[in-house]
């Protein structure tokens, strides 16, 4: 039985010598590729919309978080104001009349 290295050498040599005939596949190749490119271009806008979808989703989430944080801040301020009005209603009324901050 021949040694594996001999077999490999002979196989590689045969592969080297072989000139594949690709003319059949080459026929109208340019037309196929250009058609594929045109098809991909027509789907370009839809593809971009899909690509941008995560960005917009993230944007909505950030806006939601920001809105929530803002509301929480307002709620905390409202509690403080309510406490102040309850404890010193006269002062609050006076400052409102005088337009003090």
């Amino acid at each position, binding site marked *: 039985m021949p040694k594996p290295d001999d077999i490999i050498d002979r196989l590689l040599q045969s592969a080297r010598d072989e000139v594949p005939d690709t003319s059949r596949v080459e026929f109208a190749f340019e037309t196929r590729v250009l058609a594929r490119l045109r098809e*991909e271009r027509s789907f370009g806008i839809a593809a971009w919309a899909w690509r941008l979808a995560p960005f917009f989703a993230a944007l909505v989430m950030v806006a939601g978080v920001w809105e929530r944080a803002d509301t929480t801040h307002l709620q905390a301020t409202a509690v403080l104001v309510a406490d102040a009005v309850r404890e010193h209603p006269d002062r609050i009324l006076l400052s409102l009349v005088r337009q003090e901050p």
Partner: protein
Amino acid sequence: MTFALPLSLLVDKTEAMSDAAPPSDEALVDATIRGDDSAFAELMRRHKRRVFSAASRFARDDHQMDDIAQEVFVRAFKNLRNFRRDAPFEHWLSRITVSACYDFLRRERRHRDTTSLEAVEYDLSDPSVESEIAAGRAREVLSWAMRFLRPEEQLILTLCEIDERPIREVAELTGWSEANVKVRAFRARASLRQVFEDHAEA
């Protein structure tokens, strides 16, 4: 009423057209970037033979070969703006070809792992293997053996051993260092030997 062009004018024009040198690859690249599809078609006409030849080393049938070649030119088209003119267009396209072939091998391996192997099993202790090689079916035997190797091993064996490209060129095409290419080529050859030894023992 008809108008006739002077023959001398027509002759001059035809001669001028035939004398004009064909546009360079770089000029065609520029025209393609400007939106001229026919320029890209001309680029494909010029280079498709080489791309198909490279793809045929990895593909098992015409359909796969066509897929690889299409992938190469679609990638080239999409990245034309990244083509720097420090090397010829042909070299740039060769790098894309190697990359597309490597991706194809990786996809094939995943596909092969999930489907049954339909390859013909060769009994290497059988002297008929000799006749298979002699009968010009070496490629079939080799591709059968290659299927047991990893994608990078198949790639490096094809580039170094079948295409007989210099180590430096393989390094440029694959993006691996020259030392890395040497080591990988040595290991790939050893793996191929192992495939034959295992099958001979079995």
